[in-house]
């Protein structure tokens, strides 16, 4: 059992972790940059430590500062949240070396799943479908051309060390592939310091479906069903829901088994997410595994009643998952998460600034996870996510109706937010029909200038 946790993160996820810790009787230490003195997680934690200046490279990404803060406060564990150091294998390793429990999987699991081509190979060996593509890293553009001929175009180049869409290039024929190879190589080199590329068949208009996993040290691995995450913009999720409108019981069970197999292949312990591409003909292939708690985890919490952060903390303390062994986790009802970003809903430009007026929606079926308060200034240095509005209804229709009224009753003044964009998505007939793919948001993208 853990007794004091340092939360190596900020904003809403830090507040969320504090809530879980309080319910478990675990003391909390907040860390913060100089720009985050007034951030809510600092006010709500039992203790706080300033670890550096505003720039996240010097504070939230500063391994020495974070570990040192844990040491001077006597914390026995570190929860990394998402982003920042959450998927940094070296950080997990250092924490362990310093006698601190890392609330997450082992460094080995992080490292394996962080290397996209290695992960792809391990997953394929575990019998989970992957997209046709290169077995490991590409040797040259000629190598890519030969493989692409065999697989058939279109193909996509991805950085082995990649994520967030950088180092990704699509090619519809050999000429395009030749050019794309050099560009992707350079981008990957620049973004990740590692130019290694791999190649995959490109699926047109797929759905992005992910499965929530929980695994404990006792060797139990369970999945808690899927989240539909196809509503994305530049590979950033905007709205997530559960269940997905296109999965039936059989496909859900099959994909769930695959997700568990992936977790087992990675010797995974803790909460994690296995992402799949689902093509129009309902064939699914492994995309990647996220080795952390995710922004959209509350969607699963709402339909399963399982507190994922508490489970994660239990497992980190060496205890087994609390879900009764014989009980199949059976999602009930429908949940939607709306990410509320501090940004202009038309230009998508960040909109930091002072919150002059704030009204959070209440009433049945509504949950708001946020670090906002009236008078708080959203700093320009970090992610623009400022709140997660979650709604729950007995079915998708009720969740959509509830989502609209909650968005309408959510008032944020002083900055621009994505609330108007979310309302437009809800009014979209294709969204309402559940008939969409990852290309859905293209219609809402501002023209590139």
């Amino acid at each position, binding site marked *: 059992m853990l007794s004091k946790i340092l939360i190596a993160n900020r904003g809403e996820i830090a507040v969320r972790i504090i809530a879980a810790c309080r319910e478990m009787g675990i003391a909390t230490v907040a860390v913060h940059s100089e720009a985050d003195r007034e951030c809510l997680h600092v006010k709500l934690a039992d203790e706080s*430590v*300033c670890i*550096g200046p505003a720039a996240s490279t010097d504070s939230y990404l500063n391994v020495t*500062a974070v570990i040192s803060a844990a040491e*001077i406060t006597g914390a026995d564990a570190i929860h990394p949240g998402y982003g920042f150091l959450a998927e940094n294998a070296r950080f997990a390793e250092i924490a362990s070396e310093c006698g601190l429990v890392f609330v997450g999987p082992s460094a080995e699991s992080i490292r394996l799943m962080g290397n996209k081509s290695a992960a792809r190979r391990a997953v394929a060996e575990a019998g989970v479908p992957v997209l046709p593509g290169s077995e490991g890293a590409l040797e040259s553009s000629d190598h890519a051309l030969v493989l692409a001929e065999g697989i058939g175009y279109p193909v996509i180049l991805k950085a082995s060390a990649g994520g967030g869409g950088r180092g990704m290039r699509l090619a519809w024929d050999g000429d395009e592939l030749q050019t794309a190879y050099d560009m992707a190589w350079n981008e990957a080199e620049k973004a990740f310091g590692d130019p290694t590329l791999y190649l995959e068949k490109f699926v047109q208009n797929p759905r992005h479906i992910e499965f929530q996993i929980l695994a404990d040290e006792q060797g139990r691995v369970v999945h808690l069903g899927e989240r539909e995450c196809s509503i994305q913009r530049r590979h950033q999720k905007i709205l997530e829901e559960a269940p997905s409108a296109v999965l039936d019981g059989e496909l859900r069970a099959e994909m769930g088994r695959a997700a568990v197999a992936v977790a087992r292949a990675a010797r995974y312990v803790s909460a994690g997410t296995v992402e799949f591409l689902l093509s129009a003909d309902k064939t699914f292939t492994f995309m990647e595994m996220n080795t952390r708690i995710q922004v959209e985890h509350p969607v699963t919490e709402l339909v399963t009643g399982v507190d994922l952060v508490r489970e994660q903390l239990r497992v980190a303390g060496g205890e087994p998952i609390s879900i009764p062994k014989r009980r199949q986790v059976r999602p009930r009802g429908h949940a939607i998460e709306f990410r509320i970003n501090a940004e202009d809903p038309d230009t998508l430009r960040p909109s930091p600034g002072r919150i002059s007026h704030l009204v959070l929606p209440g009433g049945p079926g509504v949950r708001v996870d946020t670090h906002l308060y009236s008078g708080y200034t959203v700093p320009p240095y970090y992610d623009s996510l400022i709140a997660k509005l979650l709604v729950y209804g007995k079915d998708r229709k009720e969740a959509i109706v509830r989502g609209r009224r909650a968005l309408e009753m959510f008032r944020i003044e002083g900055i621009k937010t994505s609330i108007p964009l979310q309302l437009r998505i809800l009014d979209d007939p294709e969204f309402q029909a559940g008939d969409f793919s990852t290309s859905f948001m293209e219609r809402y993208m501002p023209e590139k200038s």
Partner: protein
Amino acid sequence: MFKFEELCELIRLVGSTDVAMVEIEHAGGRLRIDGNNPVPVVTTAAAAPVAAPVTPAPAESAPTGSTGGSPAAVDAVDAEGAEGAGDLHYVLSPIVGTFYRAPNPDADPYVKVGDAVDSGRTLCIVEAMKLMNEIESDNTGTIVKVLAENAQPVEFGERLFAIRPS
């Protein structure tokens, strides 16, 4: 324009109410107090006979509930009160860690109050992840106050020493 105590009272008042800003111009002097801002922004015009020391609640002092901050914050106020704040220079901790005044438990402190120090002189150690980081003075002058306690944690940006520059 105002006595020092009156000015302090004004600042406290603005800080505790919802007033956003007070600006006063009078007999060539000018005073402006911004309330309710995350960034402290009090300025006074040079011409005013108010003198310099309108140092607001130091932004560097640790927030409530903060780990190693409270005693240092208290000391800092003492130092200001005792010595007349405006002309003091503060050496801040560049890292999070544990503050040590001496290289080892049996050794003498690197410096003590009253010592003259040059810029570059080692003042203390801040230990982080078993690494002993020597902290050097970034100014030349006399040590007026030691603001952190030996073997106690310090935050990033926390005040360690007050120096009167020479």
